[in-house]
């Protein structure tokens, strides 16, 4: 990037740039399609060139989106944000405490628990959802938001990542010094360790947020009330209905527009917060 090497650099970097250009096309075209398709009415969606605009129908689509089935899409959007936000907050808090505890304390069963963490990541979600349903049903909390939020608190990867990060970035000596100062363990955790753990916590928060935001199978099984659905389940329901009675209801355009609005908040969050989570991700990757 220095002016002296500029000529040399451009000569040498045309190939990487062409390859990156191809990559941008590959990753962007499907997203571009969603944006373009969301501006089309249902007949145009099935009848006009896929990657170019037809009559601009976006506002009508959005209006229909938020009024179809009594405006249930708005509820889905709120539900998704609520479930994902609560789960991510809770999972991050749990992972922060557990990761810190594992990295900076010694107690019985710790070794075993640490080894088990990787094993926990390997359990297929489909294996857990059904028994969890049966148990939560026994407790009468299926078909409530808790049936989605509580199981989503489980983030072994989050705990693992925080543990690794604390190991690297929160010096033992600092904690010991605080102890000599007679600071309580909770205070040390809250005032000394937490600020230093921030990049890891942002990472865990964002990743659990995405995991819950994008989860389909768990809410599909747990919820049977359309007003409680998150976006993924709601949009799939509409898609199935669109196939079932294409004649009666215009829904394909809503599925597309609804998908676009479901994606935008997460993309924005990631792009804005990338400075924070990248360093956290690096810690997880280094170990």
């Amino acid at each position, binding site marked *: 990037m220095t002016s002296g090497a500029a000529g040399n650099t451009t000569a040498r970097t045309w190939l990487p740039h062409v390859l990156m250009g191809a990559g941008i096309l590959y990753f962007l075209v499907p997203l571009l399609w969603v944006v373009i398709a969301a501006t089309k009415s249902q007949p145009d969606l*099935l009848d006009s060139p896929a990657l170019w605009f037809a009559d601009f129908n976006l506002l009508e689509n959005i209006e229909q989106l938020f009024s179809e089935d009594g405006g249930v899409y708005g509820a889905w959007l709120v539900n998704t944000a609520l479930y994902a936000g609560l789960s991510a907050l809770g999972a991050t808090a749990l992972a922060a405490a557990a990761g810190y505890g594992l990295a900076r304390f010694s107690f019985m069963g710790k070794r075993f628990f640490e080894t088990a963490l990787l094993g926990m990541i390997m359990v297929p979600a489909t294996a857990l959802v059904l028994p969890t*349903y049966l148990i939560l049903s*026994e*407790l*009468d*909390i299926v078909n409530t938001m808790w049936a989605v939020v509580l199981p989503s608190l489980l983030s072994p990867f989050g705990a693992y990542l925080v543990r690794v990060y604390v190991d690297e970035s929160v010096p033992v000596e600092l904690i010991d010094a605080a102890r000599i100062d007679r600071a309580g363990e909770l205070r040390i955790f809250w005032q000394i360790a937490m600020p230093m753990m921030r990049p890891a916590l942002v990472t865990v928060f964002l990743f659990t947020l995405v995991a819950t935001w994008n989860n389909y199978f768990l809410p599909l099984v747990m919820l049977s009330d359309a007003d409680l659905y998150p976006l993924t389940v709601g949009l799939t329901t509409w898609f*199935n209905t669109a*196939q079932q*009675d294409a004649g009666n209801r215009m829904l394909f355009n809503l599925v597309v527009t609804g998908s676009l609005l479901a994606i935008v908040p997460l993309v924005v969050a990631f792009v804005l917060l990338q400075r924070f989570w990248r360093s956290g991700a690096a810690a997880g990757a280094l170990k």
Partner: protein
Amino acid sequence: MLGTKWMAKLRAGLVVAGLLAVAACGGAADNPDGPVRVSVWAWYPEFKGVVDAFNASHKDIQVDWTNVGTGPDQYAKLKTAFTAGKGAPDVAMVEFQQIPTFVILDGLVDMGQYGANDDKNLYAEWAWSQATDGDKVYAIPVDGGPMALMYRKDLFDQHGIPVPTTWLEYADAAAKIKAVDPNAYIASFGSDGGWLNGLMWQAGCRPYGYSQARAKDEVKINLTAPECEKVVNLYGDLVNKGLMAQDKFFTADATAALDSGKYWTWAAAGWTPGYVAGSLKNTAGKWAVAPMPQWTAGADEQGDWGGSTFTVTKQAKNQQAATTVARELFGRSKTAWDIGLNKAFLYPLVKDVAADPAFTGKAYDFFNGQKVNEIFVPVSEKLGEFQYTPFQDFVFKDLNDRTAEAMSGSRQWSTVLEETQKNVVAYAEKQGFKVSR
């Protein structure tokens, strides 16, 4: 189901956490003096109006309706609810081919004990016999799908191709269509279990038999009868020759193909007029309906594709009230059928509604003014008995997987039914059934 100690402990822990308090807000308690509330799962289009009509005309019973998903999505929820022992609605919409499945899962109430047998003569005979087992009434029929051939009248006329009246003529027409337009097909092999089943039904094939009243653990499976084989062979032959497309029905691709002149026919059902009128804009007015091609010239054999019922689940709190809801949501309700026929485009299984000139005499713009119900109604009247297995999902899925193999060329069409027969029999025996042919 989980009466173990840790369960109790876990529950106690959660009480402390105040979770049950939150959960308790979920279910509204029945007011002992107010109307009985009956929960209903259904995915009919325009169903809200039907529910409103019921609630307006009933003081003691009020319906709470939820759409939890279409077909398989809802069944998956029902099955989990039956397994968990709670969470099922009082009344659930169930398609005909699924009734024995839910009966054997012990999920459905016999409405006969609440007087539902009084409705016997209200409904088309074939539908009533599928919904019942002896005098046990497991389901109240709502809508059906008597089959007929939808075709592009303009194209057939223009190219002087006669509309097929037999399946032999149908195969001829397929070749002629290919000759005049290499990009066109007579139809698509849609990979739909109910559709193929309807075609086999029409061919006189009766592959399944099950009656819990007779024996809980006996089932008849005979997919390799010549009446069944001839259907798969005909369609397989058309696919092999490239005369039949392979798009799955109801995908946007298949819909677009119907609307672009790529398909010239669709062996469709009584609910088709509604389905196509909304989605096929370019070709509206160019279609017509003819009776199904016959296997023997001059015969009058018919089949059905699709149709649904209301059932009462064993988890219903008030089974008598739930039965009333199942019988009267549609049943004799004029308002409900007005919505059902003109907005949701259901084919009515209530005989009087189907015979009403308002239905039979209705001219459809989509079919260039043709009164297509004059074709569908006699089909429904002609339909005979047809039974299903108590594991029809498995049968349809296996049939679908085997035909998919045949379409991809990794299996001979002539072995499709043989293989499905083998797999289904093995499955049935594993499930503890005695299998006969």
